[in-house]
Structures are given as structure tokens and as C-alpha cells.
């Protein structure tokens, strides 16, 4: 009964891969940008829901083009994209999460970006790097996100802290102060293990000057800097300042509201989550830059927009992407979604320039780093996830865990 689920689903993917390729592969040289045509666009999550409105406005200005936006849930996005790529039926324009791009570019499913018209200098460097694989750029940065430190200002006063912790050492003592003086259950929320623990670890890793892969794509995860960062990370668990086990689907904002967790590292989406769900908490929390080790460096995430290699409407697709990623389009997109613009020029006017907490995000974004695009990125980071977990659970030393991860990752990228 369950066998069908396991064996069958793997097999089914193959079926689609084998049979559908036969009907894939579109011929034709493509349609000019000013001809009458329909653009198909896939976008994920909230972006997928909101992009429809922008598409409507775009159609008003461009009568010859109708844009068909299909929202895709993040949970099914990867499988849908793989199936579509196998069938040669990717939409003209597709939103690419940072970790996806390397994989699809490697499959040959994406059209390289024309770097003569889209300029690298217009975007945050980390955002641009996410759209680049093997020296070629496939995605135009659309929006960015990064992680900063969220902390409870009211509890910080109770704990006798003057402002946010500025260094990693301060972060340790601040967590201890929250716990002992302000009576919070925990000092800071950090993910102890499981899938994508690495997201929570990146700010520590990058701030210490470490990385998983260097710019040449070589594994460097057991460098002294990385070992130091993991020791720092593990220390919170050793001292009982971070919870060692977190259930899947854990929502940190709940404990942040009650004060059980006074600090966490979170992305820009946390801001609207806190504002919407806990309006009473407003004024009692703030964001601060990631505490510095060698420097304050966070992780860059976000999405870019790519054009399918099989698309017949490349010219029109380029124009549409241009519209979404120029400073005006980016500022408009921020108003609709609160997604942080990837285009630096968009930050020069309006709320984006004035708001003090947005300045924190912007400053963090300018130095943020990202892992080079790599088709096996998910697998590589999963090895780091296991290393982190074995340290937070107190099973191995940081050095031993990262040495193991290093040899595993070398086997993958080598």
C-alpha cells in the first residue's frame, strides 16, 4: 500500500522525464518584443500572489502583451520546476530561488542574461552572484533578503544592556544577561539541527571570515575561521542559552512575544510577521546588525528572475524582467510586498532611504555573502547541517564535525 508511494513516485518522475522529453524542445527563433503574444510567468509563495497585480498594470502599458502569472507554492516549487524542465515546458519567465539556480543552469534549462543591457553594478554584489553560475549570469536579481538580529528592547533594559550586542563576544554575554537578569527562558534562538540549520549558522560563519565553498568552488568548511564560528555557535547550547531541540514547524515569533526567546536571527519577512501577529509588541523590539566577529557579515538570500532556454518570447520576457528590476519597478514591488529591492538605486528615495530599521537591512545587505551557485548546493549544505547538529547536541567537537563535512563535501565538488 505504501510501496506505491515510495517506489512509484521515484519511478513516476522518471516516466515524466523520459516520455515528456519527446514532446519538449520547441523550435522557432522566437517572437519579436512588439508582436502580440502571451508571456507565461511562474513565481513562488507571496511573490506569486502579488505579481498578478503588477502584471495587470504592465499589460495596460503594453497592449500587445498579456502576462499569465502562475503562483507556485514553495513546498512543491522544486519538483514542479524539475518536471517542467524535463519536459522542456518551463514558463518564459521563472522565479529562481538562490539555491535552485545552479541546478537549472547546469541542466541547460536557462537562457544567459545579456550583460550588455543588465548591469552588474546596479545590484547588490551578493544578489548578482546568486544569479551567476560557472562564470555566466542566468538570473536578474529581483529581491533580496538577509538575516539580522531581532531583539527585545524592553527586556534588554531589564537585563541592563546598553543597546544591541556589537560583537560575537557581546552576543554571548547578552544572551547570558537576558537569561539571568531579565529571567528569560532562553538567551537566543538558534536552530540546533535538521534541514537548513546552515541558514542560522551562516551569519556566524561569514562574520568569522569562513565559508563553505571559496570563490573557486573548493570546499573550505574546516578552515580555522569556520571551526571558530561553530565553537561560538555551539557554546550557546553548551551553556544552556539556546534550546537544544526544536520541533519541526516551530514558530519563533510566539516565544519572542512571550519573552521566552529575547533574541533571534531573522529575515525581513519576520518584520511583517511580528507587525501583523503581535501588534502590541510594537516598540518593544528592534533589529540590529549581525554582531561582528572579524566583521559583521550576514547571508544573502532572495530570488532572481530567469528566462527559459526554450522560450519563444525571449525579447518580451527580457522587457518584462527589465520592468520588474529597474529602480522604479523595485520600489513599487517593495510597497506591495515589503520584499527588499535588489537594485541599489531603488534604496535612494522614499521610505527605503528614510526608515532607520531599513538602513540596518541595507547595510547588512551590502556586505552580505552568498555561497557560489552549485548544482549540488542542497546536498552540500545538508552535510554542514549534520555537522552543526552533532556539535549542538554535544556529540563531537567543532573541529571533528567540520573535518568530516569537509571530506564529504570534497567528494561532492571534487
Amino acid at each position, binding site marked *: 500500500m505504501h510501496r506505491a*508511494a515510495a517506489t512509484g513516485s521515484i*519511478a513516476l518522475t522518471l516516466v515524466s522525464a523520459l516520455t515528456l522529453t519527446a514532446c519538449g524542445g520547441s523550435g522557432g527563433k522566437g517572437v519579436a518584443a512588439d508582436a502580440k503574444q502571451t508571456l507565461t510567468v511562474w513565481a513562488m509563495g507571496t511573490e506569486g500572489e502579488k505579481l498578478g497585480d503588477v502584471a495587470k498594470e504592465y499589460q495596460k502599458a503594453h497592449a500587445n502583451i498579456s502576462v499569465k502569472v502562475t503562483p507556485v507554492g514553495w513546498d512543491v516549487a522544486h519538483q514542479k520546476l524539475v518536471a517542467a524542465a*524535463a519536459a522542456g515546458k518551463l514558463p518564459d519567465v521563472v522565479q529562481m530561488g538562490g539555491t535552485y539556480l545552479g541546478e537549472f543552469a*547546469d541542466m541547460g534549462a536557462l537562457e544567459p542574461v545579456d550583460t550588455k543591457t543588465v548591469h552588474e553594478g546596479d545590484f547588490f554584489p551578493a544578489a548578482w552572484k546568486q544569479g551567476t553560475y560557472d562564470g555566466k549570469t542566468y538570473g536578474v536579481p529581483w529581491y533580496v533578503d538577509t538575516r539580522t538580529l531581532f531583539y527585545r528592547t524592553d527586556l534588554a533594559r531589564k537585563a541592563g544592556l546598553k543597546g544591541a550586542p556589537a560583537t560575537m563576544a557581546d552576543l554571548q554575554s547578552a544572551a547570558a544577561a537576558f537569561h539571568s537578569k531579565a529571567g528569560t527562558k532562553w538567551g537566543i534562538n538558534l536552530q540546533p539541527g535538521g534541514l537548513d540549520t546552515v541558514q542560522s549558522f551562516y551569519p556566524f560563519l561569514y562574520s568569522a571570515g569562513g565559508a563553505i565553498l571559496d570563490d573557486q568552488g573548493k570546499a573550505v568548511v574546516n578552515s580555522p575561521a569556520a571551526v571558530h564560528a561553530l565553537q561560538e555557535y555551539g557554546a550557546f547550547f553548551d551553556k544552556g542559552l539556546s534550546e537544544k*531541540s526544536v520541533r519541526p514547524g516551530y514558530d519563533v515569533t510566539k516565544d519572542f512575544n512571550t519573552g521566552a526567546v529575547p533574541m533571534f536571527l531573522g529575515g525581513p519577512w519576520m518584520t511583517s510577521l511580528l507587525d501583523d501577529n503581535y501588534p502590541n509588541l510594537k516598540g518593544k523590539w528592534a533589529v540590529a546588525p549581525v554582531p561582528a566577529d572579524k566583521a559583521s557579515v550576514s547571508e544573502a538570500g532572495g530570488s532572481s528572475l530567469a528566462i527559459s532556454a526554450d522560450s519563444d518570447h525571449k525579447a518580451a520576457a527580457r522587457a518584462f524582467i527589465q520592468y520588474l528590476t529597474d529602480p522604479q519597478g523595485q520600489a513599487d514591488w517593495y510597497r506591495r510586498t515589503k520584499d527588499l529591492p535588489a537594485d541599489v538605486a531603488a534604496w535612494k528615495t522614499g521610505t527605503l532611504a528614510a526608515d532607520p530599521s531599513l538602513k540596518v537591512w541595507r547595510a547588512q545587505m551590502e556586505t552580505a555573502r552568498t555561497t557560489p551557485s552549485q*548544482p549540488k548546493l542542497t*546536498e552540500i549544505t545538508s552535510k554542514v547541517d*549534520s555537522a552543526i547538529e552533532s556539535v549542538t547536541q554535544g556529540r563531537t567537537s567543532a573541529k571533528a564535525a567540520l573535518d568530516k563535512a569537509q571530506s564529504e563535501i570534497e567528494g561532492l565538488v571534487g
Partner: protein
Amino acid sequence: MSLTTGPAASGAAVTKTTPEGAGAGRRPRRRPLGRHTLHGWLFSTPFLALFGLFMLFPIVATLLMSFTDFGARNVTRPLEAQFVGLDNYTHLFEDDRFLTALFNTAYFVVVGVPLTLVLGLLVALLLNNGIDRARTFFRVGFYAPVVTTIVAVAVVWRFVLDPSDGLVAGLGAELGVQVPDFLGSPTWAMPSLIVMAVWRNLGTVMVLFIAGLQAVPTEVREAARLDGAGTWQELRRITVPLLRPTLLYAAVITTIGYLNVFEEPFVMTQGGPSDATLTVSLDMYREGFNFFHMGYASAMAYVLFVVIMGITVLQLRLLKDNTR
């Protein structure tokens, strides 16, 4: 099939063949048979087509794929996958994660299956004999988990097992006992999932056993009681032996289901903490869909298939009905 349609079809043949065969007096024997086979094939075509497309082809394709290095790149160019012989299979047995997954699956089956069968039998016996009132209520109560979607079940169980404000933790606090963090501790995660799986699958086994119990002839029971057998003796000497066919079926079905266990760890723990609840199916899913090692995942599927096949054959041998 040919037996049941035989008379009707030959009847039709008689009426049709009469004009041409009138002079001969005897009707030809061969033609109706040919038509039979044609009808047979026609009737089975829908099944054969669906089975071939959605079962046979994937099964064969997976087998072939398990001898290749089929990966993400081959999604757009499937024929470029390299033949690697038995490499996937040899790597599997050097892969720590897979061996952990095998161990976890064995743990789940060895503890879970007997527990499900014993509890299922107990509940069935109670419902069949002990409880007269509200029998339907209890039956529905035990069967409801079977038909409830796993996602809803997971939400409820996560709440029950929550270490800070869950039901079990609350009861523990009342009694002054510190309960462990069930899903967060590598020691307790698997037992917690087993308990949940037993609760989920109890209903199916119970229904099977109730049907089996009702087929036990009352005369045999009466004779046993007249001979002075107590409740325990009646259960051991009469009920269980006569339930043997049902027991065999329930054991085989439950074992196959538990060997393939996927949903429980997938929704409750994602295989964690520290791979403590990573099962073979979940590992296969990870390799196949997260990392896109389709060849490797297919090899896993076949190893699991061989294990299931072996265990099922063994069970059929051991629990064979010897009374006949």
C-alpha cells in the same frame, strides 16, 4: 472468464452461423474461441494499459535506472546517464546514513508490528466479547485514526508530545514527573513515532480480527468450555489457532506497511533528531528528490523491495495454516 461467458457467446454463434452452416448440420468449433480471446483482451485492455504505463514501465525503468548514475543533469538529457553496473548497490552498503536508515526501519518493524498485532487482537477481543454497550462508538473510535489524514494527525500529536505545554508534559507535571522531550531526543523520537503508528494502524488490524473472530464457530468454543477450558486456555488453544489465516494476513500487511514507513517521520520529525528517525523510504525520498540522485535512490528502492519480498515469503512460510 471464458467459462462464464461460454454459453452466451456460443448461443450467439449459433444464431449467427445458422444461415451459412445450415447445409453442414454441425457448426464450426473454432471461430467462437477466437472471438472469446478477442473479447477477453478487449476487456482487459484498460487494466493492461494503465498497469503497463503506471506500474510495469516505472518498475522496469527504476530497475534499469538503479544501474546508472542518473542525476539532475539527466532530467533534460535522460539518455546521457552513464551505466555504472553495481556501483550504486555497493555504495549503499558503505553509506552510513543508509545503514542507519536500515537499522531504524528494522527497529520500527520489530517493535511496531508485534505491538500493533497484539493490541489489535486485544481490542478486537474486547469489542467482540467484553463490551456490549457503545460497541459502535468504540469501533469508530479505534478506526477513526485510519481514515484521518496524516497532516491532521501530526498536528494533534505534536501538541500531545510538546515538551513545554503538551498533554503528556502536562500530565507529567501534575504527577511531578519530568517527561522527556519526545520528538527532540534521539532516544525517544523513534518510540514516540512507533506509538503513533500503532495507534494509527490499530483500526485496520482490529477490523480484520473482528471479522476473523466472528468466523470462529460457537460450537467449538462451547465444546472447549464444557471440557473445562478457562478464558486463557480458550484464547490460546481455540481462538488464536483458528484466527491463524487472519493473523497471517494482518501480519503481512502490517509488516509491509511498516517497512515502507515514510509519512510518520516525514511529517513529525523530518528524520531527525540526528537521523534517529530516518527510515529507508525517507532516505530514498531525500536522495531522490532533494539531491536528485535518481539512480542511487532507485537502487535503495530495490534493496527495500528485496527485503520486503524476503520477509513476506518468510512470514507466509512460518505462519502457514497447518490445520488443513
